[in-house]
């Protein structure tokens, strides 16, 4: 308890919470977008995140080996993001086509099992490729700290939080202001009615997978740069936490996933102050249970009902 009253430690923890929360939120958006449109949990989403991280890793390693990254650090990082997004988006689109579309009309359990299978497949594929070894992101930009008294805030943390907010704003504008975004929402609500409007439902579903995967890829590169080491299992825990965040916010609800991610990150960081750290996961999943009991549809769960 004493920690909670200390303003410095509290600020540090809030920044820690927002950093990891932003990453949870980016991944959670992928779960929620896909769920909103297909009513299925894409359990391979954590692996899409992992592949994105490896994509960024490959590019950064290449650029740092040939010295390009020392002269153009910012450009190199942008390249890494671009490559990661490209790889993950392609992977997401292929997965949808190969593993989920054939099961579109099957019982709801089938695509779920397919997703779990894909997840294990991707993990092992990457393991064979990397021989199971930890890979380390090269240091492109030195990590600077902003020191305020006892506090030290990493500029990486600030960039991650800002980056996440930027991507989320972008996504929000896309979904609510563009024609394709509106079509996504229309398809999510009623696939048949949408196709009667001339909307190519399959195309919209593919786009949804691509956007979700791209956000996960961005999160993957951020994790790579911030935590520096990645391996084939890196998608598992963030995947589960992000899924929790999505459910917390109300799965299928886009602002809910953003809120859920930050909420979970903060809860974990602050929870460590009031109880021993071994209960960190207990906090996350305890919250999930609590929210599901009090508000089964999540914090931002649907309140609009269709009148007939």
């Amino acid at each position, binding site marked *: 308890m004493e920690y909670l009253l200390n303003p410095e430690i509290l600020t540090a923890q809030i920044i820690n919470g927002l950093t990891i929360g932003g990453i949870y939120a980016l991944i959670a958006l992928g779960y929620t977008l896909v769920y909103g449109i297909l009513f299925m949990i894409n359990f391979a989403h954590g692996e899409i995140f992992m592949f994105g991280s490896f994509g960024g890793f490959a590019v950064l390693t290449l650029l740092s080996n040939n010295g390009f990254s020392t002269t153009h650090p910012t450009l190199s990082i942008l390249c890494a993001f671009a490559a990661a997004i490209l790889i993950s988006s392609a992977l997401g689109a292929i997965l949808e086509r190969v593993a989920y579309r054939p099961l579109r009309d099957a019982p709801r359990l089938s695509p779920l099992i397919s997703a779990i299978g894909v997840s294990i497949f991707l993990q092992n594929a990457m393991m064979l490729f990397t021989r199971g070894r930890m890979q380390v992101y090269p240091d492109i930009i030195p990590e600077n700290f902003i020191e305020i008294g006892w506090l030290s805030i990493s500029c990486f943390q600030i960039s991650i939080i800002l980056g996440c907010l930027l991507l989320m704003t972008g996504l929000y504008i896309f979904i609510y202001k563009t024609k394709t975004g509106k079509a996504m929402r*229309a398809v999510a609500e009623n696939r*048949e*009615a949408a*196709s*009667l409007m001339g*909307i190519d439902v399959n195309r919209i579903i593919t786009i949804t997978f691509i956007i979700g995967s791209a956000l996960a890829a961005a999160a993957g590169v951020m994790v790579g740069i911030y935590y520096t080491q990645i391996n084939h299992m890196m998608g598992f825990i963030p995947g589960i936490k992000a899924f929790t965040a999505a459910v917390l916010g109300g799965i299928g609800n886009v602002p809910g996933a953003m809120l859920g991610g930050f909420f979970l990150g903060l809860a974990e960081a602050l929870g460590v102050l009031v109880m021993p750290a071994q209960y960190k996961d207990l906090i996350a999943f305890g919250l999930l249970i609590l929210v599901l009991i009090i508000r089964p549809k999540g914090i931002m769960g649907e309140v609009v009902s269709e009148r007939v």
Partner: protein
Amino acid sequence: MISQKQPFLDVQEIHTYYGKIHALKGISITINKGEMVTLIGSNGAGKTTLLNTISGLLKPQKGQIKFEGTHLEHLPAHKIVSLGIAQVPEGRKIFSRLTIMENLEMGAFIRKGRRAIAQDMEQIYDLFPRLKERRKQVAGTLSGGEQQMLAIARALMTRPKLLILDEPSMGLAPLLIENIFLTIKKINQEGATILLVEQNALLAFNIACRGYVLQSGKIALEDNCDNLSQNKMIKELYLGG
């Protein structure tokens, strides 16, 4: 009665299965340009199945559908829309989480040209002033009648050559029904061909020029509406004696 020139919509001997149920057992109908044709039948006769087969939501096992000479049997629903067929689905199926304006925008999804779309939207607001008042509202907050108007308006935004309406009167108050039917008539008079499915046969015969009676997946009768409304069997079955 079929004219020498090609019919506008030509449905030939189609068989459609709904899961394992043989829902349509060889149905043929034709619609000429500018007509308003009605389709009546009891629940489960296959009306909605027929409409969904025309609009591409369901695929026929056998038979063919031609619209202005183009085969529709193997086209996906969204392609059929761009050929000029719009369907107002049963139960309206508006996008309740989108605003009214966004619903109309979705209607114009296949179209290009901002100005034309904006013009059409203004026209539609003239036709349904209620929608204009509430255009920024989420469609889920509309009343049943307003939702029906929105569903029709949304279909009109595709600029259809053929408008298919599936039970537009369902669940509405009599006064509203009259209002909606007047609108439908107006749309027809303005040049759109209409295929109207209705349970309320009397109303349908009042505004349509020809009608088909569907019974357990087959066409039982076909005639002009005046004759149909005099038909003894129809009187007993659909017009309440």
